């Protein structure tokens, strides 16, 4: 019996990893299809703009709020230890670097994944199970272009903008947090923030948010587009869209850090 259960475990693991690898393969094919199709006419420009509004503008209150709180809390948490080392004047620089390089992009992308990834997954999932995607297909519209390309492109373009605005809000929150302890003028605070930053901090941070946005969009669409097993599948699509894209954000972040490290951009 022990031997058998061991064998069973091996079977289950190999089967699951097979499913996992298959999923990765399918996701890659799906992503490749995006790049193949997005430049070819016809362009779903109206839908793209609509999605930009829904995906970008409508997410601003949420990401803005979290960014503001993050900036405020980060500063308040840093303050005691910076006082301890007598370098509280370095808070703007530290918070600036932390927010612009890492906290802003990743936090915003995670919030974005939670909000947009799930909504795309659920929307496309329910369209799939109620045959709306098939209906588009038979009415001569390429649903991949109409649904997947527009949403993925919109989240790819909107996330960087969200991140830039959220970064600014975050820094403002940090400024207010700093003002709890000591009076700093707005100008001085932002001078100090910008003195510690270089162009090479901003550009890679913005570029990586393009990838984050792409990951959230394409994974949400992928999960929704291949939903099966009815309404239950819709919930699962939304859920796994969030989980997979969140993990993907961290993986991409790691990769981007490695690359920028190799390129020695911060020198």
């Amino acid at each position, binding site marked *: 019996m022990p031997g058998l259960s061991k064998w069973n475990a091996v079977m289950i693991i190999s089967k699951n990893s097979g499913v996992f690898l298959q999923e990765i393969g399918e996701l890659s094919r799906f992503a490749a299809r995006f790049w193949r199709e997005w430049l070819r006419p016809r362009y779903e420009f109206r839908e793209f703009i609509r999605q930009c509004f829904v995906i970008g503008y409508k997410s601003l209150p949420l990401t803005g709020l979290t960014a503001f709180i993050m900036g405020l809390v980060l500063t308040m948490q840093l303050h005691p230890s910076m006082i301890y080392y007598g370098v509280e004047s370095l808070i703007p620089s530290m918070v600036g670097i932390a927010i612009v390089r890492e906290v802003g992009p990743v936090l915003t992308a995670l919030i974005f994944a939670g909000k947009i990834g799930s909504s795309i997954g659920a*929307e496309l999932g*329910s*369209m799939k199970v*109620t*045959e*709306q995607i*098939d*209906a*588009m*297909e*038979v*009415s*001569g*519209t*390429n649903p991949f272009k109409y649904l997947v390309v527009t949403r993925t492109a919109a989240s790819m373009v909107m996330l960087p903008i969200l991140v830039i605005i959220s970064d600014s809000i975050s820094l403002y929150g940090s400024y207010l947090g700093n003002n709890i302890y000591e009076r700093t003028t707005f100008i001085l605070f932002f001078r100090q923030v910008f003195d510690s930053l270089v162009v090479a901090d901003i550009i890679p941070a913005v570029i990586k948010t393009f990838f984050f946005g792409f990951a959230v969009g394409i994974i949400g669409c992928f999960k929704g587009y291949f939903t099966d097993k009815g309404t239950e599948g819709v919930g699962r699509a939304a859920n796994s869209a969030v989980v997979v894209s969140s993990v993907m954000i961290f993986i991409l972040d790691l990769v981007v850090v490695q690359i920028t490290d190799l390129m020695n951009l911060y020198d």
Partner: protein
Amino acid sequence: MNESVISIRGLSKTFGTNRVLDHFDLVLHRGENLAVLGKSGSGKSVLIKCIIGLIRPDEGNIEVLGQNMLNLNREELDDIRVKIGFLFQSNALYDSMTVRDNLEFPLRRHSFRLAPAEVNHMVMEALRNVGLEHAVDMMPAELSGGMRKRIALARTLILKPEIILYDEPTTGLDPITSLEIINLINAIRGKFGTSSLIITHDLKCVKLTADRIAMLIDGHCHVTGDFEGLRSSSDERISPFFS
């Protein structure tokens, strides 16, 4: 009446170990209403999804309006799909869009050539055909089942297709509403001269709409004939449908 608009030869489709279609043959002639009868789960929906190209068959040949559906590229497929109307069993209305947007959606391919007034005219005419002009600004969720079916039909009609594929147009509707739909199907044929493939297991619908009936049993076309001929058949696999 003998020109064929759809001809299917040796169509087979297997899902896993479930052989749904097994060398299915069928011909739809121009201007006729052909009903496909079969019990639930016999593969009727799979059959018409193969015709429109939503499901790719394992084997066989499908010709629609003289073109082999399985050898077409994306653009050619879209071109021919415009000529085929498809009424989904589940209606498949876009529930994030108003009725108007639902109806405009199939027009999008041509919308850059159409003036807004013209688009509006086409939408209202399609709604008039199904008697639901007042619902133009409603959302699908606000409609009853019968209204949804009619809106779906209006959406199918808006491009004035040569062929319409009906997937169980009357299932789940009360007898009065289903009679309305049946009358609509007949009216459409009278008005536009379309050829129709009507998939159903509703006897009344078959009786009132079909010129010819094909029986889908065990994945292939068991027999074709007219209503009276099949009803008087002594075949034990056919008679249960007509009892």
